[in-house]
């Protein structure tokens, strides 16, 4: 089996799309084969620019991804075309476990292009807007030599911020009419944006939405705004630096279904990539991500080992006591996992 998977991995590294698709399936199903493939591929990762696209359902994420990927494939001037992988996550039903993955519908402009690979993914019960194996998918595409990996999250509400730990650049997509300025200062999804997009900017209310979001960003650094307006006497920059030093989160209007409607956004994405490279933020995010992966894997491994050594009868007994409220959760853990436990 090991030689079969090594063969698949070699084919994948040589650009074989069928092998790539099959390795992704193994990874998604968390098979021993899939894990082995990830081990082999890991050394080749760390090069691709991972772009996250998130926002509420129906804001036009898939259409934007379609346009951005198209611009990567057909760059202006003498720039070389980049190879683009797209991971499109849609929700699984909490009842049947099934899913309708419909993001490809908006990506037909990319059909037949050998420099583009689109893979749909069901969230399979994972919270946070991604699937359990989305990060691993990004690694496989990275190793397979894709220059850009675009991750489209599940249509997200306010708290689906997992994408921030995966992507180098996070686009949060809003549309006109999604709420007043209090919505804009709530914590959560807007905070993780590196670029804020107001899509469907041809609709009424677009300007108001752009202003509300800019005002929200300014509130984050009120001193800066004050100095800009009154002391220096200059007009303030439309985008004010947020908590990350040196990067001003821009608010970019876009019309994903109109030719040229995403060019400004595309340029902002390029600017953010330059910023990541120059500022050292790229390395910081990379380190952050790897540390998180390591810690998560350690936690999962410890839990699996603990499940093996804890006697089932004892576990049931303690669980019964917890149900009767004779033991608190922490007391139960003390019994099931005493300090001297060797894992």
């Amino acid at each position, binding site marked *: 089996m090991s030689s079969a998977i090594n063969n698949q991995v070699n084919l994948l590294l040589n650009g074989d*799309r*069928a092998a790539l*698709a*099959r390795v*992704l*399936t193994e990874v998604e*199903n*968390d098979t021993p084969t899939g894990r082995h493939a990830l081990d082999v591929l890991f050394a080749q990762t760390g090069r691709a620019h991972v772009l996250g696209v998130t926002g509420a359902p129906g804001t036009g994420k898939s259409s934007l991804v379609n346009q951005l990927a198209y611009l990567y494939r057909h760059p202006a001037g003498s720039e070389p075309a980049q190879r683009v992988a797209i991971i499109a996550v849609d929700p*699984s*039903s909490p009842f*049947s*476990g*099934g*899913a*309708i*993955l*419909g993001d*490809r*519908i908006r990506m*037909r402009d990319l*059909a*037949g292009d050998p420099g583009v*690979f*689109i*893979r*749909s993914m*069901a969230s*399979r019960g994972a919270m946070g807007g991604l699937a359990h194996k989305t990060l691993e998918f990004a690694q496989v595409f990275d190793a397979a030599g894709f220059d850009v990996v675009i991750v489209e999250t599940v249509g997200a509400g306010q708290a689906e911020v997992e994408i921030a730990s995966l992507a180098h650049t996070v686009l949060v997509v809003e549309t006109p009419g999604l709420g007043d300025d209090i919505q804009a200062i709530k914590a959560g999804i807007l905070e993780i944006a590196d670029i804020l997009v107001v899509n469907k900017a041809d609709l009424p209310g677009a300007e108001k939405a752009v202003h509300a979001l800019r005002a929200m960003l300014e509130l984050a650094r009120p001193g800066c705004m004050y100095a800009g307006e009154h002391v220096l006497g200059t007009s303030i920059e439309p985008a004010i630096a947020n908590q990350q030093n040196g990067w001003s989160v821009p608010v970019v209007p876009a019309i994903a279904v109109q030719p040229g409607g995403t060019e400004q956004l595309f340029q902002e994405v390029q600017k953010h990539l330059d910023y990541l490279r120059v500022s050292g933020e790229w390395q910081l995010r990379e380190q952050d991500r790897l540390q998180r992966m390591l810690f998560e894997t350690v936690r999962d491994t410890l839990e699996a080992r603990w499940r093996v050594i804890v006697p089932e009868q004892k576990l049931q007994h303690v669980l019964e006591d917890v149900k009767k409220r004779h033991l608190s959760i922490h007391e139960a853990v003390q019994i099931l996992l005493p300090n001297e436990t060797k894992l």
Partner: protein
Amino acid sequence: MERKIRVLIAKPGLDGHDRGAKVVARALRDAGMEVIYTGLRQTAEMIADAALQEDVDAVGLSILSGAHMSLVPRVLELLRQNGQETVPVFVGGIIPEADAKKLLETGVCAVYGPGAPTSKTIEDIRQAVEGKACPAQ
């Protein structure tokens, strides 16, 4: 963990009637399958390309335009070229009986006409993916 069945549901050709495809997609979803829905007006090349990238276990084609005798064999041929000849292909739509027979001979797993119960389709797909056998005709 139970392995999820992934199915591509596609509408090749130029007719715009996608209600049937949506009903089937929804039924498969409720049966716990992951359905990749491509939308309207797909070429055979687009469908085969999507089937490859998504590494699906089965392909469902919905055709109401009458062009099934040219579209379906083309999809089968492209799947074969991509090394996906073992992926079962199901066809639904307005297909005359004589054509249905020919399609089955060229390698289609099953053909469904109007009024076919979705429970039958679900069962057939499960059988074909897990048991590697198409329903007896």
